[in-house]
């Protein structure tokens, strides 16, 4: 099994040295294999989102090392991290983070802008992606004209537009209804079937039946790992 993500003694401290200092992550060591469905689980405030942010490189650890695809990305420059996210990581945020005034297809396509993909091609690819996610009737609609589930699917389409190796979703079920949750699970499993690594941060038990590896966090510490066999290379 190929290791795709590895962390070594990762700490994340907010307001370091100040009276309001918060230790969000404490000495996190974990390993994630390619093409696994991974669940980061824990109560609210346990550090799930912080850990997801750190391993997705949208936040930097205070201490420790993060290895992505075998490389120590803790030493990467801002440019290097942007390139890595652009090519290999797709992010789905809890509140979707869609740009309010842009129609769905533009929200999906803007990661392609710095790649020099021209508008016609951007639209073609976005429409294709939105159609796959059954949003063909919402292509020109801005987010405020869509339901939570639809907005999430637009966010998924945006995460997938560059065909990333890893898809990470933060609390993906918190802002959508039951029907949309079912759709979401279908999409994530389909992506896993296509060889992607799926990492979900959630306290929702709905993912328990789907995840192959589960990291349990509490107070910023990794307290349990389910399917520990995954950690031992055969």
């Amino acid at each position, binding site marked *: 099994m190929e290791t795709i993500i590895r962390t070594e003694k990762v700490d994340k401290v907010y307001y370091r040295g100040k009276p309001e200092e918060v230790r969000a992550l404490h000495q996190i060591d974990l390993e994630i294999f390619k093409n696994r469905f991974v669940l980061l689980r824990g109560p609210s405030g346990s550090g799930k989102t912080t850990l997801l942010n750190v391993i997705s490189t949208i936040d930097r650890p205070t201490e420790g090392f993060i290895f992505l695809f075998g490389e120590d990305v803790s030493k990467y420059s801002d440019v290097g991290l942007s390139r890595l996210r652009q090519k290999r990581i797709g992010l789905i*945020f809890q509140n979707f983070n869609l740009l309010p005034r842009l129609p769905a297809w533009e929200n999906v396509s803007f990661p392609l*802008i710095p790649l020099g*993909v021209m508008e016609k091609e951007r639209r073609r690819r976005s429409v294709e992606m939105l159609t796959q996610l059954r949003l063909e009737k919402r292509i020109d609609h801005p987010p405020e004209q869509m339901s939570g589930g639809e907005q999430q699917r637009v966010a998924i389409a945006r995460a997938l537009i560059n065909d990333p190796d890893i898809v990470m979703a933060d609390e993906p079920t918190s802002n959508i209804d039951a029907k949309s949750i079912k759709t979401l699970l279908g999409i994530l499993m389909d992506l896993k079937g296509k060889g992607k690594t799926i990492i979900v941060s959630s306290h929702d038990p709905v993912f328990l039946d789907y995840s192959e590896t589960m990291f349990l966090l509490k107070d910023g510490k990794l307290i349990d790992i389910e399917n520990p066999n995954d950690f031992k290379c055969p």
Partner: protein
Amino acid sequence: MKGNQTGDMSRHLNLLFTATANILRNKVRTILLILCLMAVLFPWITAISISEGIKFQSLLSVEEGADIYVTSDYFGSNGPIPLDYLDRFRKMEGVVSVFPRIVGRAYFVNRLATIVGILPENLPKSIHLARGRTFLEKGEVMVGKGLAQEFGLQPGVRFSLSINPSKLLKVMGIFDADATIWSSNLILMAFDDAGEFFKMKGKATDILVYTRPGYGSVLAKEIQEAGWDPPLRVQDKALVKRYFQRGFNYKAGVFTALYTVAFALAIPALLVISGFGQTERKKEIGVLKATGWQTQEVMEMVAIENLVISLTSAPLAILMSMVWLKWLNGAWIAQFFIAEIGLMAPFPIPSRFLPLPSILAFLFAVILTMVGSLYSTWRTAAVPPAEAMR
């Protein structure tokens, strides 16, 4: 290599189109920013145009005028010069013609008019008779179009001025001139009449010397150093030109300096407007970075937005300045450059739009918008995306 260049070009084009689309999408912010920039730039552009217009007219007048102006030296200032110098100057080598002139000022009702006493044959070529005829007889005058319009003066009308109420003057002609600023409030009369009017018989305020080409500065030096008693003050054409240029550059400089203060005060206002919707922008930048945009790409897009806004604002400010000058005759701003004209000038204010102030206006707009947004964008883009989106 070629592929990379094409990719780079496509990326820059994409950023340009995205920036333009952002401007169009954020209409309120864009309109406010453009209006604010126009409000800051247009008075400056108008002022510089007026200054350049006046300078141009002045230089035209100087160019058309005499080669040497001679007055008496009264404690370092210009004083009346006796007419017996006329013959002495005429005898000098290189002199073509010499004639006396009286230039004085007097109130016409509440308007300060300039009275010029001159020989009819020496009337400047730039003066065009609009109505009536030139002065020929004693007591006859020609008045500038501005003064005539303001007080309803027509050929045949008689008037007197408070400085010498016993002398009755009769309007014989109304004239216009290339240099509106000098001609508008002018009253032209015969030299002898002016001498009588100002009670200065046998003297002129200055003597105008026309020379053969190349003799101007030599003769000026010769007259200056001839040891006259009382001593004379001599100004040649080049010197007068320099005075004018320096004077207007100084005024434009003072205006620009004063304006810079107002400009500096405008920066915080623009910062606020540039940062209009900054929270939303901060989040947007965070999302862009999270989805793979680089800081320099975000900065490029924002810089292009500012550039497009500046490219729109500067020509609009120039256009507004043209409208202000054409329809409102440079109201409020012109009085800084032309004394005693009040809020609305009674004559067409001269103006000239030169490329340099236009380029400077564009640069000012760029600086203002860049200062307003690039730093805050960089601060947002340089932090981890998770922090920007928080």
